[in-house]
């Protein structure tokens, strides 16, 4: 079953809740190797998104939801995460613009565009201990699943699994981008907060897709 605007909206609403629930965890991760604001920044952004979701016109498509998220995050999150996630959602919106519902290829295009947006803005490479280390495995897993004929739901589950593994895999790394890069060896053993929030957002995508598919 393709994913409609119902999924897109449910996904984003779940992001709001998940980020609020993990606010302190993300702050703590960022305190360890950054400046301790990532959870607060993300929560401020998604609360603002929540306030705007009701303004979406009835005839909206998934791309419209993503665009709304993008502009809201850009204008409310700040820090590094604001422009990076903002660009991710903006590029994702463009990638699926106008499509009323998304098949597997569209889901992969969405994820790929998001990841490319982050890389375009942040110039991080894989292994730099950033959110890219959650997104790139997610994109790769999604593409592989799609090539293997998986459903959009299954593609998102693969992506979420890979993103979580990618976030965990940032722990042994030395950072080369973002604030954690100043820590050198001392960043080792700590999970990157942006990779963790990315994994949370992608898990929300998969879970809501499963739920919407069940309904």
């Amino acid at each position: 079953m393709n994913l409609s605007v119902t999924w897109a909206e449910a996904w984003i609403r779940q992001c709001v809740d998940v980020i609020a629930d993990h606010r302190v965890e993300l702050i703590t991760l960022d305190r360890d190797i950054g400046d301790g604001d990532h959870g607060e920044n993300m929560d401020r952004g998604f609360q603002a998104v929540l306030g705007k979701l009701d303004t979406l016109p009835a005839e909206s498509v998934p791309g419209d939801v993503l665009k709304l998220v993008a502009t809201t995050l850009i204008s409310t999150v700040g820090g590094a995460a604001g422009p990076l996630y903002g660009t991710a959602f903006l590029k994702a919106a463009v990638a699926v613009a106008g499509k009323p519902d998304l098949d597997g290829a569209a889901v992969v295009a969405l994820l790929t565009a998001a990841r490319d947006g982050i890389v375009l803005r942040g110039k991080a490479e894989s292994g730099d201990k950033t959110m890219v280390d959650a997104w790139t495995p997610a994109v790769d897993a999604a593409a592989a699943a799609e090539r293997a004929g998986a459903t959009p739901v299954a593609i998102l589950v693969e992506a979420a699994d890979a993103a979580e593994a990618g976030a965990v895999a940032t722990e042994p790394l030395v950072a080369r981008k973002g604030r954690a890069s100043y820590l050198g060896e001392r960043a080792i053993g700590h999970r990157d907060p942006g990779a963790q929030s990315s994994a949370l957002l992608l898990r929300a995508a998969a879970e809501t897709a499963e739920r919407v598919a069940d309904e």
Partner: protein
Amino acid sequence: MKKLVNDPKNVVDEAVAGFAAAHGDIVRVSSDPTFIVRADAPVTGKVGLVSGGGSGHEPMHGGFVGVGMLDAAVPGAVFTSPTPDPILAATQAVNGGAGVLHIVKNYTGDVLNFETAADLALADGIEVRTVIVNDDVAVKDSLYTAGRRGVAGTVLVEKIAGAAAERGDDLAAVAAVAEKVIGQVRTMGVALTPCVVPHAGEPSFTLAEDEIEIGIGIHGEPGRERIKLEPADAIVDRLLGPILEDIPFVSGDSVLLLVNGMGGTPQIELYIVFRRAAEVLAAKGITVTRTLVGNFTTSLEMQGMSITVLKLDDELTALWDAPVQTAALRWGR
């Protein structure tokens, strides 16, 4: 966490409102989006200077808005760079037709948000140039990091570029002066205690009772090394070494020496530091011709300080001496 705050979410808005109430002769304040502009903005024909970044570093940047320095400051949430909207709005508010210079500290968030704002301003027909301040020599290998951070040297860039704009330099010339300062200013800091971001409620890092962090960033980012507390003179020597080697500063140079408190350091300690730093420079044949001591680029209540050295020439000295009238720096008027 013990702080003089109400709801942690309102810290920046309330402080900005208080700032406006206290300095209505110097600045005006816009809320929604939040930014601070000098009272007479925009000044027709003058290049506008906009800086900004996360809050918690006061008086930077709001305290430097006024005649002879910044035209606008854009405060983000505590330790979080502002979003593009207020940067754009501030840029529009100070555009007097001669273009706008963005003075940005080198942090991913600041760079990206100012970049977006500059793109939007350009689309609006405003000419924008950007300079990136990265004076922190604590970051050693900038190839393998996000690059050197912008710290207390930013104040000197803002003062000197502000004076250039005030005397009527065009955008390219103001940007060139700013770049010249950036090329000649170096800083390194130390933390004795961490700071507590209001919404986080807990210290940004921990240091044992006998530990200090050499090379600290202004958001509590860690530095080069964590060592045992030493006498002030030894700490000064540790900071000055990498600073002086970097450009390098050499015998015969004239410099501005800035000893900057991190927010929670008694002034008496800053002068103990200044004494030693001046002594070391004198011994190397470097002449301190201009000085600044105090809290200028802070990290909330952090105890610690940074030392900044700027190589001066006649032009930079004259621009430094030019009149300035801001909440935190004032002379000549």
